[in-house]
């Protein structure tokens, strides 16, 4: 294996779901402060983390994302009073579900980044990018998409007979 070469050849796709009031503004601040971070992240803006449906995360992985970031306002700072509190519960549970079906949670990061935390945005995005880069591509969902049917072996006489009749 050539890990170094691999590191150069694999550029992970990171999707960030962020709220417009805190994290999007924090990312803007990183820009106006001319901070530098890896170009792998694509930002999707939502009014609030409360709007972010867990299905979007699933969809992102299925569409080939290697890592997903969800980021919003710190607790108590939500522009919409409590959207981030609802999101916090929703994602606390959803990540447990993904973990249980075998998704490596190192690919899924949650963070609170305020409009003043340009530095934190850079740190969160850089860390996730490097972590996922080291893990390699997210192949699980992509491989699923290539598979046609049940991989189960035809291991009983009944099944074999049924199969032969098809």
């Amino acid at each position, binding site marked *: 294996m050539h890990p170094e070469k691999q590191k150069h050849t694999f550029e992970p*796709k990171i*999707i960030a779901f962020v709220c*417009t009031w805190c994290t*999007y*503004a924090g*990312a*803007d601040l*990183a*820009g*106006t402060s*001319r*901070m*530098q*971070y890896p*170009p792998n992240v*694509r*930002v*999707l*803006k*939502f*009014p*609030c983390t*409360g*709007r*972010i*449906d*867990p299905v*979007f995360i699933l*969809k*992102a992985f299925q*569409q*080939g*994302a290697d890592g997903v970031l969800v980021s919003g306002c710190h607790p108590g700072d*939500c*522009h*919409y*009073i*409590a*959207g981030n509190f*609802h*999101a916090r519960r*929703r994602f606390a549970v959803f990540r447990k579900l993904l973990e249980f079906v075998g998704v490596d949670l190192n690919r899924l990061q949650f963070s609170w980044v305020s409009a003043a935390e340009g530095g934190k945005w*850079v740190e969160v995005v850089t860390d996730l990018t490097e972590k996922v880069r080291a893990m390699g591509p997210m192949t699980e969902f992509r491989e699923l998409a290539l598979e046609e049917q049940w991989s189960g072996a035809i291991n009983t006489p009944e099944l074999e007979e049924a199969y032969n009749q098809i």
Partner: protein
Amino acid sequence: MSRIGVFICHCGENISRTVDVERVAREVGLLPGVAFSTDYKYMCSDPGQNLLKKAIQEQKLSHVVVAACSPRMHERTFRKAVEAAGLNPFLCEMANIREHCSWVHENKEEATVKAVEIVGMMVERVKKNRVLPTITVPVTKRSLVIGGGIAGIQAALDIADAGHEVILVEREPSIGGHMAQLSETFPTLDCSQCIMTPKMVDVANHPKIRLYTYSEIELVEGYIGNFQVTIRKKARSVDEDKCTGCGVCMEKCPIRKIPNKFDCNLGMRPAIYVPFPQAVPNTPVIDRENCTKFKTGKCGLCQKVCGPGAVDYEQEDRLIVEPVGAIVVATGFDLYNITEKPKGSMIKGYGEFGHGKIPDVIDGMTFERLASASGPTGGKILRPSDGKEPKQIVFIQCIGSRAREKGISYCSKVCCMYTAKHTMLYHHKVHDGQAYVFFMDARTPGKAYDEFWRRSIEEEEAVYIRGMVSRLYQKGDKIVVMGSDIAVGVQVEIEADMVVLATAVQPQAGADALAQKLGISYDKYNFYSEAHAKLRPVECATAGIYLAGACQGPKDIPDTVSQASAAAAKVMTLFAKDKLEREPIVARVREAGCVGCFACKKVCAYGAVEEKEIRDRQGNLIKVVAYVNPGVCGGCGTCQATCPSKCVELDGYTDEQIVAMIEAL
């Protein structure tokens, strides 16, 4: 098929230095649906905007993507330009290739590839954008003010002076609130009633203010600009129109020994009474619980002596419905009372101070009444137990406040200052007396506040002891105060004649019930929550409802008056237009699919989700579905993420738009 126009901005060199803008324009131009793609030096400049408008018309563009800076910067600019060119503004999106791309990357190839992808995502998104009409809501230019203390009075006068009608509702028989009870006010020691009563009279005489005293809010319906408020006007038993306020009824009433709440139960009043001589309105009310006529059916003296025939024993509560466009909540505070078992209160009680059973342990408001020239002692500081002048007086601060182990942790804010004032008033009235103050910290931010506090020590000879008191007990006619002086590190015991407790400022009883009627949020202490602690401190998250005074948190008079005027200014801003316009980023329910589980209603922080009945032509109920009131919706979209069947959608952030972006990756 959409005809999308894409405009790539150089932003001088800010973008073009690290992003090959021409290549972006070229590559994006090949995307399906893109009819026109170009780059320009400064899109936000007048020529840039004109380029945009011209292209919309000449190319017959259906949607627009401007790839430039952050939408937080110029989204409004470009949406206006698009609107000017005849397109719905919400058919324009911005792709952020400056803050999120050119400024944070150095490698031109990488940055260019990223920029193409960012613009590509926005192209896919904008295809799914829908025409969103601006939402307008009519505004009823009348305001309701709840609470007739200094906060409510100030707000009502300001709004009325601007020419708008005000409905002022007060629970007690008179307006005035707590400020009317105070003796002098810090830091100037001017008499509270001298500055308060003229304002009360102004309210009574103002042609634009309709005053409902002895009244409470029964029901609030509607939303910003269009509230319907039901007010319960409690039976006063005296006709306000007929009563001249001569006071004969009060003189003749045979029941005279009812503790007067206004005087903290130190003074007495008759069963037909006004709470205090300067009451507004100066119309008595019959306390039906204590009136002989109501208890036994006999007496009726007040009716006999009343010249104008205003006394009406048959009067009943009346419900009045008032349409208003805005509501100012100014319900104020109450002091935590250690004599009452704190039912439902978060404060665990002060058994170590005898649960208020020691008669000469009083609270700050009682001291105000003792010190007030119009109070029950005529301004003399006398002990409630035996009427003697206390020569040693101990003030204890932070009773309930900042006491996490007692249940609440906040600072009541006014106690440090009023205790300093009390030591001064005491020293002015009892020259040979000595005042001690037990305190944790002295908190005196405010104009001329710290100077005032220092004066109480340096000139008025109050002895400040840093430490708390563990126990009070009666020993003979003295009260033994056991405390600690943590500055010196010793236990101290003072045999005091009187003890004054600076008890915590709490919201009025029933603040939570009123909040539920109004649909506004409140914190765990029942203080009302502002929409934003820093930037929207006088607005509730519920549109059209504003906060003034101590109902939002402990406040002194200057802060209360400032906030009241600020709330009034917010109301006037709302009333400046006939119709209310708001961004159409609101949730909408697809009623056909809604099964009425109301998960959306449960998560809505704005109370914007209502239950709507769907009936057939015969009027039979088919189902109950959710309905989002666009006037109230805050636009967060939490409802949509919660809805299992996605039958509520946030305009501007629909699933289609978001999925389109994810699929564009």
